[in-house]
């Protein structure tokens, strides 16, 4: 087996554009869930409106690219408001169901035959990313010796990591402030915060909007790097994996989602590569009756599932989390 090759693939993916999508989504969830305690399981919905905001504006409405970017922010904002106005008074677990239901409903509507002319049906939409591609200042890919990125991906990761940095900075600046303190208090007990004269609803709404817009940004970036918007991409697994990234890193920590996302993708692609190698070639390491190459791609998920479980069992607070906080959690 070629361990160097596996390491290379894993590292390349862990810092690559897909990981960035999850990192961004997880930063948004961190604002919602980590800091405010809003159990938003509909992050994929925010991402979808972000992505479709751009695609529909450019492809269907013939708007300009930058208008599309603006629309995509406005769409995420609008979704946050529309979702928040009625649901923010729900209990946390109900909110989870409503958000997951909304995001699924959105995905189904975006992919429906009936709305094909607006959202492109299940094929989705393509052909909006030219301006973005043309902005690419690099003339060539980059080869860092060990890992290398193609020209496209180099541009993607430049943009992506810059977005991540900006989001982290914003989150950091906000969460160390009294504003962030109010959010964390709301997570603990809304009524207590209310009794101290804080407009809990307004804060929750602000948090929902902030996290939702970061989610929208994640969707936008997803759409740009993928060059296509396909409804099935925005399924609930996306949200779950983003949650995983967040918790792996540690919730309510500024860098938690970043580290978590990178590690998650490192694991996922490293495992994929490992099992891929073990089952491919004329004389695979694992006998085919035990595992063939199609099963090998599944093994990665099996092991990821296991790894996630083990991580939570042995380090429930995530990598950055505080053990003491978890101890408080016991009922």
């Amino acid at each position, binding site marked *: 087996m070629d361990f160097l090759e596996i390491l290379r693939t894993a590292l390349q993916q862990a810092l690559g554009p897909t990981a960035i999508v999850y990192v961004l989504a997880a930063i948004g969830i961190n604002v919602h869930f980590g800091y405010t305690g809003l159990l938003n399981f509909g992050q994929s919905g925010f991402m979808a409106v972000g992505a479709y905001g751009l695609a529909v504006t450019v492809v269907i409405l013939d708007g300009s690219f930058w208008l599309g970017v603006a629309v995509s922010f406005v769409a995420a904002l609008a979704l946050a408001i529309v979702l928040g106005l009625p649901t923010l008074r729900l209990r946390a677990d109900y909110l989870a169901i409503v958000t997951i239901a909304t995001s699924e409903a959105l995905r189904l509507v975006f992919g429906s035959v009936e709305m094909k002319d607006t959202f492109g049906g299940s094929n989705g939409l393509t052909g909006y990313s030219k301006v973005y591609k043309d902005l690419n200042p690099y003339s060539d890919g980059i080869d860092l010796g060990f890992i290398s990125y193609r020209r496209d991906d180099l541009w993607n990761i430049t943009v992506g990591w810059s977005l991540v940095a900006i989001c982290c900075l914003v989150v950091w600046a906000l969460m160390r402030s009294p504003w962030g303190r109010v959010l964390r208090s709301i997570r603990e007990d809304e009524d207590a915060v209310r009794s101290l004269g804080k407009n809990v609803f307004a804060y929750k709404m602000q948090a929902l909007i902030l996290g939702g817009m970061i989610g929208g940004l994640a969707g936008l970036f997803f759409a740009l790097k993928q060059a296509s918007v396909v409804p099935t991409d925005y399924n609930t697994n996306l949200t779950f994996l983003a949650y995983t990234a967040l918790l792996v890193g540690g919730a309510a920590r500024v860098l938690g989602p970043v580290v978590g996302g990178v590690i998650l993708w490192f694991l996922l692609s490293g495992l994929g590569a490992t099992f891929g190698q073990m089952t491919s070639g004329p004389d695979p390491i694992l006998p085919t009756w035990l595992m063939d190459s199609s099963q090998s791609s599944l093994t990665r998920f*099996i092991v990821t599932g296991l790894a996630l*479980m083990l991580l939570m*069992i042995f380090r429930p607070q995530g990598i950055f989390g505080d053990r003491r906080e978890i101890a408080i959690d016991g009922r």
Partner: protein
Amino acid sequence: MGDGTAIDVTLSDDSKKVDGQPAPIEGVTLTVTTDDGTEVGEDVTDAEGKASIPLPGGGTYTVTLDEDTLPEGIELDSKTRTELEVRVLISGSATIAAFPIGVQAADTTGFATKLIDSIVSGIKFGLIIALAALGLSLIFGATGLTNFAHGELITLGGVVTYWFNRDAGLPVILAGLAAVLVSALFGYAQDRVLWRPLRRRGTGLIAMMIVSIGFALFLRSIFQYTFGGSTQTYDQYVAQVRHSWGPIHLNDKEIAIIVISLVVITAVCIAMMKTRMGKAMRAVSDNPALSASSGMRVDSVIRNAWILGTALTGLSGVLLGLNSQVSFQNGGRMLLLVFAAVTLGGLGTIWGALLGSLVIGIIVEVGPTFGVPSSIKEVGALVVLILILLVRPQGILGRRERIG
């Protein structure tokens, strides 16, 4: 030319049958012209009602029927249909055209029938959801855990039944029973191996929820690994024809599904309300430490919840497989609906889970009758869920918490 590319026209009168076949219409003149109006050929239908006009090649042609040559008493269904514009792509053999004559008004089912049928299948689907929802509710009730691996427990029932049935050759009924037993065992095992150690370590509920996401991924992939990616059916009761019972149409297996789930659900609900075990489960979820202080063996109460909950959920999977098919994705696809049902009814209330499931099942199936696009009929249920929660944030049967 002459390679066989042609337009063949068949004329027959659907209102008159000869030997069960529509009666051919003879002697009608048909003309084929190209796009720009040039005539390509002309033919008259023969005794079998057929005419054939050879073509020089592919392209778009217009076939015109000369209405004057139609026999007495025969009319085209619609005036505009004396011309057909046919795009010929097939080379080497004929492209067929037909003119609708005497086609009977389609025998479509009325709104009422559709509604009744969809309500019945909604109830059936709702009951299947209810079994799983009850299982989820029990487990949630005893542990407070939002179990994202619950869908996989549904899958388990179906997959195991399939194995017992197809691979071990048991009849479906026995295989299903065996699968429920295996599910119960699995419930025991997963508590023993996974959840109990986690509780011992004092793992928080959120962390456990994430563990359940990992577990779901793990199980689903295992199922896919072993069962394969395809959709399968049991070897009995696959295609049964429905009988009419008054306005209701059901086949035997559907009746069985409805009866089995009703009986099981009622039994479980009553047991939960009346027995000590049911109360103990609620007590444990409220406050495990206090339950222990009252003399309950918290671990064994929770274990029972897992066993019963997983068995019920497995049964739901068995019936789902019987109703339609078995696939490694069965449960994952149902999960959201099960969650929706439990939430709709009010978290943690047993009857609520049942009611919520029926509402969800019926809305999913009835929606299309009222114009919900059927390709996204689940959206209807999700929207109703959201609306109901807006009016009653605590769910249909849920209760508000006291403040202060």
